[in-house]
């Protein structure tokens, strides 16, 4: 059994924050009799509330079951070992996405600067120079857009 924080929000604005016991194996949520009494009293005058439970940083919806009580679907644990590291790289947090975006913008600036240097260092314009400069300039735009996409706040 583990302790977990629950939040029950009603449409009128009334919000109940309390702690419950949670069975991680079954996802069964055990509410204190005091809280159950409060919920049944609120049901007399309120619509169904939004019932959520906080578990390991996740905010999970709590659902009532037919034979009484409440249950929550717990997320699976992250895979162990090297897969956990790869999973962390593949799913960056908001701050990590910001850093990735800055890195991409640095690469974009390097591409644009490289284009200018490449063009100015060319002794004559030929197909190879034009193709190289175009590719570097295009990459500058592509990397800028990728950085912009990574930094998009939500």
């Amino acid at each position: 059994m583990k302790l977990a924080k629950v939040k029950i929000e009603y449409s009128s604005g009334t919000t109940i924050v309390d702690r419950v016991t949670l069975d991680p194996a079954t996802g069964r949520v055990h509410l204190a009799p005091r809280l159950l009494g409060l919920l049944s009293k609120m049901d007399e005058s309120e619509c169904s509330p939004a019932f959520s439970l906080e578990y390991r940083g996740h905010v999970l919806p709590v659902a009532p079951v037919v034979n009484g009580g409440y249950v929550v679907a717990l997320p699976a644990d992250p895979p162990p070992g090297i897969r956990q590291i790869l999973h962390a790289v593949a799913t960056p947090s908001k701050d990590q996405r910001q850093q990735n975006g800055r890195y991409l913008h640095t690469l974009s600036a390097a591409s644009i600067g490289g284009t200018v240097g490449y063009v100015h260092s060319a002794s004559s314009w030929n197909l190879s120079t034009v193709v190289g400069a175009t590719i570097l300039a295009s990459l500058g735009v592509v990397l800028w857009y990728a950085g912009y996409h990574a930094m998009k706040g939500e």
Partner: protein
Amino acid sequence: MGASIFTLVLGVSIAAFFMWTSNNGRKADRERDWGK
């Protein structure tokens, strides 16, 4: 010409990789906030 193509492939790969991870991160954030 070969170096230019290599630069293009490398740059596009880097951009695609970070766009992919950004989408994954946003999806994970949404699941963490709202539940699966």
